[in-house]
């Protein structure tokens, strides 16, 4: 039984939260995770597994934007960064529960900090167990097209008859598949990962790709995309499909000092330009949150 479409967990989480009140009280006496981290000398960051260009393994070590960002944040707080990767759940609620505040039901422990967390104000407001803050990047859905395959692009309708790569189950897949009652159904080509999609794109098997801009730009950079593959440009989805969103940091609510320290560290990374430099290292143009 796959509880597949799971935003409904919101309701479940509220109940779980209320049944966990006892635990939360017990945590009142527990030391803030910042103090524990300073004692241990390290903070554990939770990052998505196999998620280039943000977090992935390379030559036995972790690499990627989120990994470099974690190291920089930890340094600012005066500790080392350690990393743990995880397989994403059905949605972010699952990820926060499994990695930050409860752990998985198969005996998993929780980590200290999660990066790459969606930070829509409504979403932030409905969290009872974690704080989401330190908004640092604005992601937007973008399109790159092969200039050899079509000369110009102005509307999504122009994708009719083209081979358009998307990651399966992504918002891009959802939107294009739904577009005008399915006129792009035979155009959309779905890949299990965006990495595989961009690989196919650079091999000339696709005419265009629709994906989050930073992720797409970073993967095209990593796969050595030639100049005929246009720089991704943001596109607008209509209706209830969001085409841009902010990313931030999450920690469990029991550690306000850790949250404050990381928020402070993040604004310094942004102000100093270090964050921009980290993104640039992976071929991504940094986008300040809030700028459209």
């Amino acid at each position: 039984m796959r509880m597949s479409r799971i935003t409904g967990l919101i309701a479940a989480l509220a109940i779980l939260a209320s049944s966990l009140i006892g635990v939360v009280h017990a945590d009142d006496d527990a030391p803030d995770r910042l103090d524990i981290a300073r004692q241990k000398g390290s903070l554990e960051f939770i990052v998505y597994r196999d998620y280039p260009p943000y977090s992935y393994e390379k030559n036995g070590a972790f690499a990627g934007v989120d990994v470099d960002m974690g190291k920089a944040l930890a340094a600012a707080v005066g500790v080392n960064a350690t990393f743990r990767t995880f397989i994403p759940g059905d949605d972010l609620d699952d990820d926060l529960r499994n990695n930050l505040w409860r752990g998985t039901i198969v005996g998993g422990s929780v980590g200290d900090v999660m990066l790459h967390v969606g930070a829509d104000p409504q979403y932030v407001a409905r969290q009872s167990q974690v704080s989401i803050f330190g908004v640092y990047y604005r992601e937007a859905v973008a399109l790159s097209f092969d200039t050899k395959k079509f000369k110009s692009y102005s509307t999504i309708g122009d994708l009719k008859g083209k081979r358009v790569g998307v990651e399966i189950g992504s918002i891009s897949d959802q939107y294009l598949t739904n577009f005008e009652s399915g006129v792009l159904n035979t155009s959309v080509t779905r890949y299990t990962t965006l990495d595989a999609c961009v690989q196919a794109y650079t091999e000339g098997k696709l005419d265009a790709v629709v994906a989050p801009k930073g992720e797409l730009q970073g993967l095209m950079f990593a796969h050595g995309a030639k100049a005929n593959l246009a720089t991704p440009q943001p596109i607008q989805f209509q209706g209830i499909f969001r085409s841009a969103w902010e990313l931030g940091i999450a920690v469990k609510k029991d550690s306000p000092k850790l949250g404050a320290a990381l928020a402070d560290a993040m604004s310094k990374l942004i102000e100093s330009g270090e964050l921009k430099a980290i993104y640039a290292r992976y071929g991504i143009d940094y986008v300040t949150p809030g700028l459209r």
Partner: protein
Amino acid sequence: MVRNSTGTSAVRGCCRALIGMVLAASATAAVAASVTDAMIANDQNTPNDVLTVGMGYSGQRFSSSTKINSDNIDDLVPAWSFSMGGEKQRGQETQALVNDGKIFITGSYSRIWALDQKTGQKIWVYEHRLPEGIVPCCDVVNRGAALYDNLVIFGTLDAKLVALNADTGKVVWTETIDDFKGGYSYTAAPLIVKGKLITGVSGGEFGVVGRIEARDAKTGKMVWSRPTVEGHMGYLNGKENGISGKLNATWPGDLWKTGGAATWLGCTYGADTNQIYCGTGNPAPWNSYSRPGDNLYSTSTLAINADTGKIEWSYQSTPNDSWDFDGVNEFISFDMKKDGKTVKAGAKADRNGFFYVLNRENGKLLSASPFVTKQTWASGVDLKTGRPIESNNRPGDPGKGEKGSAVFAAPAFLGAKNWMPMAYSGQTGLFYVPANEWGMDIWNEPITYKKGAAFLGAGFTIKPLYDDYIGALRAMDPATGKIVWEYKNPAPLWGGVMTTAGNLVFTGTPEGFLKAFDAKTGKELWKFQTGSGVVGQPTTWEMDGEQYIGVASGWGGAVPLWGGEVAKKVKDISQGGSFWVFKLHKSGKAAVAQVSP
């Protein structure tokens, strides 16, 4: 990664302990009574053993034993109890198997035990090492094992099949069903048919395609595989064996490649038709508007030829599913007497609230009757076409900007009946269906994220339909579609049902009781508090002239993972993990009388 070193040492510790037990066990082990195909085929008629989950090929969960019956059940008392122990509790959904002096039970977290049938003492335990990072969607349950030759075989949460020596618990073979990193797992009981081990797959939504596989039970070697989504190639002995259905007949574009229809609850077998009957889950992606068409063979019952691995017929209960109405439920073969004739029939109580009776030889629909009080999604089923008569109850089309105020739909996504198997008594001619009365608000939820990016989700909250009960054990007459009796339970029912020739029906409740009912009238005759919620499958056997009843206790499964109003009914239930065995009390021992002063 970071934890590898501790993980490795844990394995060593575990294996050392296991080796110790193995040695102790083999010293006392008698010559194994190997399980044969003939024994399995006759399982329903041999009260001294229980060789199959479902108590026979057809999964009727009916025992011919009458030693415990509706006249003497007042004297049913515990014989012994076994603790599954440790810190690992959660849902215990197993059914015991009994053979050769041993009882085999599986437990949460992919564990399995062999117990001494007389004393309840542990003979061996196998605790599967689960990899780090595994995220099973719906609790850490296991629904039982299979016996064949001198093997006991079960599936694990990391999607492996493990065959153990029944005497020693030593691993004979292991096979990987699929990559747990892709969201696959395995919780169902495997089925043995003519030397083949029949299994399905459990898995998350994306990238998963359901399939049924047949392996050589003795070696684990693949014999055939049959995908449950049209367009995919089946295989027999390593060679192509024709695609399932017809490419793109009921799916647009390339969505069939990842069409879902997971087969997470396993199969039953019709010996007279040589067909394996398997239910399939809902289609992917969740938004039904993005996959116009029936989306075969999602939410269906499939009849697959046991030898060739080809689909002989299919029946789809919820075409183009929009409510998460998995069609995985067990299809139970039975001979239906109606209008003076006997029909080779099969029945299935679907998540969608209809009790379907089909001709099991050709899949033709004979009747479809509601077994719950409310079905908002369809007003009935057209007996000519076999299709539901939908009542405009789909959530809004997100492609049309319909964020949608919530739509109320019943049954809820957890189903009018979930995984818990019903039972059929040839004696009363009734099916005993563990049902739940709940609905859900369902809407398109734009403010959520998946895998680090914005995502359009489906939001829903589950709601009981009545104040005083959610669960309802209902006796259905398959010939008329009428409910003959019902028992109402405050919390949702989540355990299996068994019926016996002693005019009894057994099932467990989340409140912790194993209960027995009069099979004809539904009168509650007996109950016993096991200390934790019962979501296991009761079974029965005879030994030394006495009849025994066994059931696992241990609250869990999908219900406690969900919230809303339902959570209030179950939030105070204690976790547990034990296997209880009952027999009739025998008084009159002189020694007992002399003890009192």
